Structure formats: C-alpha cells, structure tokens
C-alpha cells in the first residue's frame, strides 16, 4: 500500500483545532514509522529520482546537506563536518532507514543536530513565511533517498 495522504491545512485546522495542536500541517505527508527505526513505505507514488536528489542535497535553500556532511560531490568546494561523512551510506542503511533519518532524525536521536526535514510539529518561533512548512516536500525526500541509495562506495574517491 502506498501512502499518499496530504493533509490540507484547512482540514487540519478544522478537524484538530479543538484538540491538541495539529500534529502535521500543509504539505506534510502522513507516514508510518515501523519498529522505531524505519519508514519502509515511500511518501509518494512517483519513484525518487537520484539525479534530482543530488541537486536538492546541494541546494542551500533545500537540503543543504553539504553544510554538515561530506559527500561525493567534488564540484562543490566546502563540505561541512558537523555530521558524519555520507560516503557509502547506501550500503549501510536500507531505503526505509534512510527515509526516517531524513524525515525525522530526532525519532532516532532526540538530541540530534540534524533538522527533521519533513516534520513541522513541535517547532519553536519559526521565521515568518516558513511556518507550518516542512524544509523538504515528500517528493524531494524520495529523490534524496534515491540518491543516497546510490552511495555504495565507502572510499572517498
């Protein structure tokens, strides 16, 4: 079963306003975490495109993964080092494990520095214009997962 249930902002506001704050907002797709470490089901019906995923990973306004990770992207000059290097990460983790690590790494490590790229619940004082928006949409997540799955080589060249 493919999950593809985008919750509209209006629906969330109407349906959940009386209860606790809406768990997810516009543009956030519902997903199921299995056994606390994986999201096995893709977030969209369109398979992820690794070429686009690599672009989102570089883009400073989107993934900006390079601000924290070294990756096999030699044409970009400065790779950050606050997170682990991602060489060979597609060999270490399954697709579902990588999906959770991007959607919501804090589900695995509540102290993580890594942003939850597809989650808006619980954020504090978000800048005007970015409220209730995930950093990456569901398709961008799928694209990045597809790209990370191509990283099979643990050596740096």
């Amino acid at each position, binding site marked *: 079963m493919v999950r593809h249930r985008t919750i509209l902002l209006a629906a969330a506001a109407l349906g959940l306003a009386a209860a606790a704050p809406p768990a997810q907002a516009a543009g956030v797709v519902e997903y199921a975490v299995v056994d606390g470490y994986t999201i096995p089901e893709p977030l969209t019906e369109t398979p992820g495109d690794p070429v686009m995923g690599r672009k989102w990973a570089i883009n400073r306004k989107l993934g900006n993964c390079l601000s924290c990770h070294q990756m096999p992207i030699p044409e970009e000059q400065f790779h950050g080092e*606050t997170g682990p290097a991602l060489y060979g990460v597609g060999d270490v983790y399954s697709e579902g494990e990588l999906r959770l690590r991007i959607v919501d790494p804090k589900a695995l490590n509540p102290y993580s520095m890594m942003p939850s790229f597809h989650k808006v619940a619980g954020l504090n*004082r978000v800048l005007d214009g970015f409220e209730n928006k995930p950093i990456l949409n569901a398709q961008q997540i799928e694209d990045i997962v597809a790209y990370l799955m191509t990283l099979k080589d643990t050596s740096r060249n």
Partner: protein
Amino acid sequence: MTTANKAFGLLSAGLLGLGLLATGPANAADDGTRIDWGPYKVDEKRSGYTYAGAQTRAMQDDEFQNPAFLWLERGMDLWETADGAANTSCADCHGDAEESMAGVATRYPIYFDDWGKLMNIEQRINWCRETQMQAEPLKWESDALLGLTAFVKNQSKGMPIDVAVDGPAAPFFEQGKAFYETRRGQLDLACTHCHVDNEGNLIRAETLSQGQANGFPTYRLKWQSVGSLHRRFRGCNRNIRAQPYPYGSDEYTNLELYVTWRGNGLPVESPSVRK
C-alpha cells in the same frame, strides 16, 4: 591609544607572526593547541579572533586598516559634541574617556536598579542621552550609536571581561542561558549545537567559533559595515529560520549577559574584524 593598548597591540602583532608560520592556509581549522594565542585564549575559552583567517586578524590589529576605526572616530567626535536640551556632551560629565571609560565594557550588561532589569552599553549610552542630555536616543545600528559603543568599549581594550551574574542579575542570566539552549526555527537548532558542540568544525565554508561577544561591535566583511552583537544574534536566528527579536529587546539583552559571561576572562577587543 593608551600605553597598555600599545603593548597589547605589539604583543598581538608578535603572535600573529608566529601564527602565520604555524598555520599555513588561513582557513585551516585549528584546534588551538599548536598556536600560543596569548590573551585571546584563556583556558578553553577562545575569542573569535583565534578562528579568523590571518588576513582578517591582521586587518583587526592594524588601526589604519581596521575599517571599524572610521566608526570609532565618529564616536570619538560625538563624545565631545554637546547635544539635547541640556546642551551637554558625554565629555562634560565623564571627562577624558581614556580614564573614565577604562574597564567599563568589562562589566556590561549590568543589572540596573531603576529599570529592574539589565542594561547594556548601547542602552547606557541612550539612557545618558535621554536623562542627562535630554536628547533623542540614537537608533540601533546607526553609525552614531555603533561609533559611540565602539569608542566606549575600546577604552577597555585588552582588559579581561568580568560580568557579574549573581545577585539581582541572576534571574536574567538564567533566562539568557535558557535562550541559548533552546531549539528554535525551522531548522530546530539551539546556539549550543553550533557554538558549544561544534566549535572548531566547518559548517559549509565557515569554521564555527565559540560565538564569543568580546569583539563587538565588529566590522564584518560580509556586512561591509560595523554591526552590534544584537545584529549578530538576529543573523544567527535568521540563518536557522527563526523569527528574530528586536534590537535591544529584553530577550537579547539577557542573552547578551549569558554570552558575555561565557567569555569572562577573555580580553575586550572591540572593534574586531570578522568574515
């Protein structure tokens, strides 16, 4: 420049020479163990100076190259300029700044009884203008306020920061500390994630420093201008897509006390130069 300042300048020029020999490329992340940073490193505390490239440090050290001195000179003029309904100048009350202002910047922000809250240097300058000179307060980030702040702080150059965080300042200090440790913004990061957990690490092209306050106001090459500590706070908030607070807000002044206290023992080096 006082004799003490001159000695400090000479000392740092000497260190710079050593630093150049030891580091090679300016942006090589340095773990701080190979270089004797002199007064800029006290135990584990390191000024942003020690993370800056050699060229940036050289620019800061040379008064004639340091662009912030243009602002500072503006401040020096204003120190002598009578203003307001009382037609007085800073100098009328405080005399020679080299004497009366020496050490002042090491103590601010202070707890100010009349307000029942903290006051930083910018706020002190505007308090003097409003109550003593009966003049309009200067706008945050105006050349005039930046210049006066740089001028006043520069009179403490080389003196160790020593802000009080006990007594009536304690609850404000605690609020500043809580701010520092609270995640915020779309990227959900606290100051600690970058400036405590990752100091010395690259975040894309920038080496993260401890985020010390001892050099402010600072001339930032990226800004092409001098800016206040609160401007830097706003920038760091925006970078993680968090809604910034206003200049001079209680939130930022409390945060200023906490951040300044993290650097107790480091020398005042205003006006600094940063990338």
